[in-house]
């Protein structure tokens, strides 16, 4: 029986998840790196042969999380964004995006569609809504003054059922 939530970084659960590939990278939280993050996730996801729609969904979801770190997390500071990607044997993609920014005081409120703390910057308040709509599961943890971590899971269409050596 599968555990309810899949923790990236938990070795026991990862073994259970049968991770067949992983990629970890860190990028400075600058808006020009939104495109870089998208390219990296696309390159990693390519190994799982996603559909055009799935790839589009993943790129959008990742970009929302990365943008949140840049616009909100590091609003008054500088820092890095850590991204961990995992692909499991049954074609599930796990994406963890972490920052050490200012953190979110009320995660539930922040995840309310159209709620934004930056309306003057033309933020639509839809970042979490996009992440939720385009992935199968979304988990957000945050501590004020410490940072925010977003974990998303997306099951990709299993076309061939082949696995790498």
């Amino acid at each position, binding site marked *: 029986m599968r555990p309810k939530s899949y923790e990236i970084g938990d070795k026991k659960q990862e073994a259970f998840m049968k991770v067949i590939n992983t990629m970890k990278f860190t990028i400075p939280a600058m808006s*020009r790196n939104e495109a870089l993050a*998208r390219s990296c996730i696309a390159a990693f996801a390519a190994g799982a042969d996603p559909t055009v*729609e799935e790839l589009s969904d993943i790129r959008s979801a990742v970009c929302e999380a990365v*943008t949140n770190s840049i616009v909100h997390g590091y609003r008054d500071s500088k820092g890095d964004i850590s991204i961990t990607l995992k692909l499991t044997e049954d074609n599930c993609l796990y994406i963890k995006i972490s920052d050490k920014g200012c953190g979110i005081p009320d995660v539930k409120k922040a995840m309310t569609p159209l709620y934004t703390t930056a309306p003057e910057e033309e*933020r639509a308040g*839809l970042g979490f*809504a996009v992440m939720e*709509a385009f992935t199968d599961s979304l988990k957000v943890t945050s501590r004020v003054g410490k940072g925010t971590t977003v974990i998303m899971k997306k099951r990709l269409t299993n076309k061939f059922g082949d696995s790498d050596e």
Partner: protein
Amino acid sequence: MNVEIIKGDNYITVILEGELDHHSAAAAREIIDARLEQLTPKLCIMDFSGVSFMDSSGIGLILGRKRRAESYGGNVKIKNPSRYAEKIIKLAGLQSLILPEKIKI
């Protein structure tokens, strides 16, 4: 991303080409607003046919231009979004801004 603005008869067409994210939306905003302020067209058509990527920053761009246009009695419409751009536009509840394909402007 590339922004090209074509002037019509009391309307403008904004042709967006490339990836529309938070980074590129900022520059696009400046370019479009300069023309809106200069021309105050009744209609601002945003052509999304060349937009290969979009996230909610694109929604922010649309909403911001809509507010600006409405401030002088104008309006914004969206033309030719890709299936993926349309997905986000619908999520934002802005599908009424999408011009039906049959309309020729």
